[in-house]
């Protein structure tokens, strides 16, 4: 191992589902939620030959940010997210989540990591035979919360994604867009430190895709860090956002070095002004980066 300091924590991860742990105490406002430090990922293929997907990825995402990850199909976007929720492990380098190296977590600690993440997929991954409420509640049941508290928080989450009143329906009867809303409710109900979305609009028609993106923006506006992987250009163009372009195993940060870190901490991070929309303050994209994006699509 190249990094002597990169030891897996032996103690369980953050207290599950508590954003408080991030808000106060240990984590100052500017503490990054996620850091990739020279991350290497190689897939060994059955046909022989190695596929070097990530070749020294560097990135830093701060609390309260909304970040797109984009790049051509097969660039390694899903792989990057998988490394964060530990469905895959790095071959080299470090990944710090809330200050801890998760690249070398023990298998027993992985569930604790995942309780601090909300994950949304292209194929929704909901259980069709369960009710809408049950699909959301499961994220809190693993935390061992009381059923009264679970009912309350599930109702709030369903309300936030526009599924209020649908709790008793079987999840299988929902439309595609509704199923994705349900998956988002499940992702946010535990108030995770970060929401990961892997092509969450990939199975939806363009209008619904924009709808779902809007929902992620609302979630972000209420203070949640969002990492949104997509190859869909139209989504990137909706609003100027920080965009990480993944290509040939490396990440180019479209806003890095511009104004992202010079900006004052957005007011919504700590305060009550949950609806404040900070992105307007960001400078327009650089022409060279525009070019890079064109190549992507």
């Amino acid at each position, binding site marked *: 191992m190249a990094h002597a300091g990169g030891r897996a924590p032996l103690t369980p991860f953050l207290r599950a589902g508590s954003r408080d742990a991030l808000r106060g105490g240990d984590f100052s406002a500017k503490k990054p939620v996620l850091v990739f430090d020279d991350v290497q990922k190689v897939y060994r293929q059955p046909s022989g030959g190695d596929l070097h997907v990530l070749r020294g990825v560097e990135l830093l995402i701060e609390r309260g940010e909304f970040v797109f990850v984009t790049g051509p199909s097969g660039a390694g976007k899903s792989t990057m997210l998988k490394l964060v929720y530990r469905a895959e492990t790095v071959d080299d380098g470090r990944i710090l989540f809330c200050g801890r190296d998760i690249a070398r977590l023990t298998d027993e600690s992985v569930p604790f990591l*995942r309780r601090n993440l909300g994950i949304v997929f292209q194929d929704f*991954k909901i259980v*069709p035979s369960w009710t809408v409420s049950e699909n959301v509640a*499961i994220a809190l049941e*693993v935390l061992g919360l009381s059923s009264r508290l679970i009912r309350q928080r599930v109702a709030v989450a369903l309300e936030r994604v526009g599924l209020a009143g649908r709790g008793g329906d079987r999840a299988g009867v929902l439309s595609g867009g509704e199923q994705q809303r349900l998956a988002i409710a499940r992702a946010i109900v535990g108030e995770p430190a970060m929401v990961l979305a892997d092509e969450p609009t990939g199975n939806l028609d363009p209008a619904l895709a924009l709808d779902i993106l809007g929902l992620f923006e609302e979630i972000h506006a209420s203070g949640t860090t969002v990492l949104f992987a997509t190859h869909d250009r139209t989504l990137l163009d909706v609003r100027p956002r920080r965009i990480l372009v993944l290509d040939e195993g490396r990440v180019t940060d479209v806003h890095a070095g511009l104004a992202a870190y010079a900006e004052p901490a957005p007011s919504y991070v700590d305060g009550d002004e949950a609806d404040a929309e900070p992105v307007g303050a960001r400078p327009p994209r650089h022409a060279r980066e525009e070019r890079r994006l064109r190549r992507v699509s």
Partner: protein
Amino acid sequence: MAGSLERAKRGLYAEWRLHALSVVSLAVAFVCLGAALLVVVNLHDLKERWGRIGRASVYLKDGAPPQQVEALVSALKQTEGVREVRYLSPIDARNAALGVADPTLKALPQDAFPASIEVDVAPEVPEAEVQAMVNKLGQLPAVDGVETYGTWTARLGSLLQGGTIAAGALALIVFGAVLAVVASTMRLALTRRRTEVEVLRLVGASDGFVRTPYVLEGVFQGAIGSATALAILALLFFTVKAHADGDLSGLLGLDPAFLPLPVIAAMIATGGLLGALGGALGLRKLTAV
């Protein structure tokens, strides 16, 4: 735990056809085991019963002087532990064996059956003491021979032993079958519920959290399977018994009984335990993360 039960219930409900099929297979296996146990239990009762009946037939020599016989009867009556002494003349014996009103057998000579003294010993008297009395009686000049039920008890004992061994072997086979059925049911349920397991992993469920409902479903299957088997067996048993009426008890000298409550409880518990084991076995391949 409450959540696991809830999810187990959901799983049983969602896949009820699969689980019903499994329960039926388990019930068939447990019916075999239960039937074997039923035979063993009743054989055991029979042996106990016959072993306790201290009964001896003292056959008298032809032409034994009546005074000697009378003296023997009164001496036996005064012996401690003897409950009843009855003299059976050759005619009594013939009637008892052939039935009083059978005309075709009237041709048999009057003394075709030997005279005997039937002795009933109290059940508390130990086997050895009865045996000692039998030996003494056998040496008396008027006595031709003495017969007890000892040989019958011994024969029944070896039958019981054979039955127990057979039931044990059957139990092993049944246990293996139950494990296999539950394990493969769980594997099937697991492939059908892959999304569920995937979702649980995603939201940070521990390994135990994922597995517990499946193990509980195994417990339900095993317990319900064995309970169903017992219900079927009881139905058959009491139906047959009602039809056979008194014949069966007359033949055996004992009213056949259904499995005692502790055996029933043990069978259901065993079903549950095997179900849990089978469930755990079926989840072997469920990877940790």
